[in-house]
């Protein structure tokens, strides 16, 4: 086990995974969708370090694998072999029949666009819906998931003004709408909404009053100015912006030897 961890040795994706892992609590149900390698690593890290009663739900495959030393997951969304780890499986259609119980469920979402109030877009980009400039993949299950889960995290593989925009061209999930702590309640959305937006540069949260995105911490070597320059709207800036905590030696050891021995998070 490394006795000391230096920020230079870490990839931003490893810092993101460790940050997310610490925020996840034992007994929570962690639902991971397609094409989110950082989130896959984060939930498995949390499961191994402090979450023996977590339930990991990859696509529809529900598992508890805390006793596995390593877990060579295939690219699960496209490979039914992942059910080898499952205690139960639920498929499209069946997945959404128990939203009543989703207060313990945590979800992670990416986006083609994300706006200052944590609304996200997987539909597409362009003024005319009939002929979009970029056609996105579609909303998958994110509208329902974001409506009902206890809380969720917006996790972006890159941080740019093209993604973090003043206004989404289309909204496939409603985060905090046009702002305000009661925005979701007014619409009758039972879930807790987005908590953090985590990117390769920083962590952002939402102002308690108006739910506008605010810089929470910058990853080592990144300045608040650099984050702002890569963001398409004016971020709330606290007087003091802390540095995102880097993984402890134990976290990094587990991450690199048991969760991500192939180093995927160091090559993104």
């Amino acid at each position: 086990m490394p006795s000391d961890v230096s920020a230079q040795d870490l990839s931003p994706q490893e810092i993101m995974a460790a940050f997310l892992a610490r925020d996840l609590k034992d007994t929570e149900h962690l639902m991971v969708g397609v094409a989110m390698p950082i989130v896959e690593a984060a939930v498995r890290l949390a499961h191994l370090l402090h979450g023996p009663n977590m339930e990991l739900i990859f696509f529809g495959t529900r598992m508890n694998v805390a006793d596995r030393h390593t877990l060579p997951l295939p690219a699960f969304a496209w490979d039914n072999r992942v059910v080898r780890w499952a205690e139960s499986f639920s498929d499209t259609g069946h997945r959404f029949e128990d939203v009543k119980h989703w207060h313990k469920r945590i979800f992670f979402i990416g986006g083609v666009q994300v706006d200052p109030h944590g609304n996200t877009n997987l539909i597409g980009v362009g003024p005319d819906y009939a002929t979009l400039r970029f056609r996105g993949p579609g909303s998958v299950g994110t509208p329902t998931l974001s409506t009902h889960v206890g809380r969720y995290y917006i996790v972006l593989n890159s941080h740019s003004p093209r993604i973090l925009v003043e206004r989404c061209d289309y909204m496939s999930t409603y985060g905090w709408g046009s702002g305000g702590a009661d925005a979701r309640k007014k619409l009758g959305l039972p879930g807790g909404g987005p908590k953090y937006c985590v990117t390769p540069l920083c962590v952002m949260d939402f102002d308690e009053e108006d739910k506008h995105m605010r810089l929470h911490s910058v990853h080592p070597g990144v300045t608040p100015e650099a984050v702002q320059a890569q963001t398409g709207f004016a971020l709330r800036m606290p007087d003091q912006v802390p540095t995102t905590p880097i993984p402890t030696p134990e976290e990094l050891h587990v991450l690199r030897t048991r969760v991500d021995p192939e180093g995927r998070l160091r090559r993104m």
Partner: protein
Amino acid sequence: MESRTSHIIDEVEAVRRIEDGMTVAIGSPTPMALVRQIIRRGLKDLTVVDVGLSLDMLIAAGCVRKVVSYYAGGGFGVPVAPAFRQAAERGEIEVWECEEGILTSGLQAAAQGLPFLPWRGGVGTSLPEVNPDLKVFTDPIRGETLLAVPPIKPDVTLLHAAVSDAYGNVQHVGGPGWIDLFMQRAADHTVVQVEKVVANEDIRKDPWATTIAGADAIVRVPYGAHPFYSRGYYIQDNAHLKDYLDASTAAAKGDPAALHAYFARYCREPETHADYLEQIGIRRLLGLHEY
């Protein structure tokens, strides 16, 4: 008295029951033997309820006018299926924008003969703006804001399953794809392609395992979901799918040669599913054992 009528037909006959302009729902695991016959026949103007790369193939082959889909990712690191993306951006296909809960609500409304079912996921989003068939309404019981999802009624649903008897009693291995059951309930006519046809006695040994009772037609096609997976039989042929994805990507960038070759080799030249399997080759197929 006449004897009980067999529901078994072949893949060519099954697809003759589909006409241009119909709404066709495609389940998961993907009934590719039937999808390839649709492409071979050159059906046009279909409304297709589907996801992923089988949807992309049908669009690339020119069969689709309208798409009902919650997800058209390409997989293999390609965020959006190439033919879907290009056809949508050019306005060549119409997209009925939805998500998983809205799709299943619409299928269930059709199955139950209702004018709509309510759904909460999507309230506050752009979905009812870009899909005007979804109506925002105030519920008359508690006064909450909800979406009214109208029926999604396939003319024909195409599914893949493990086994059936000759009378359309279908049993899956490892549970059905649950979207399949929504699609079957909602459709006027359901065709299920199966890995194997078994005796009626085999079905009656365990009637609790029957997932679809009385499918309209059964098509016997071993390896019929290839290049996708079939639970309990074989895994996905990722190399084949990647070849298709590369060809579709190149076509979207203006070089359709590889895509034309793909469709010729795998969809148009093989007249039947057996011809297709010969084209793929026994070594490749046997290399796809589960796990």
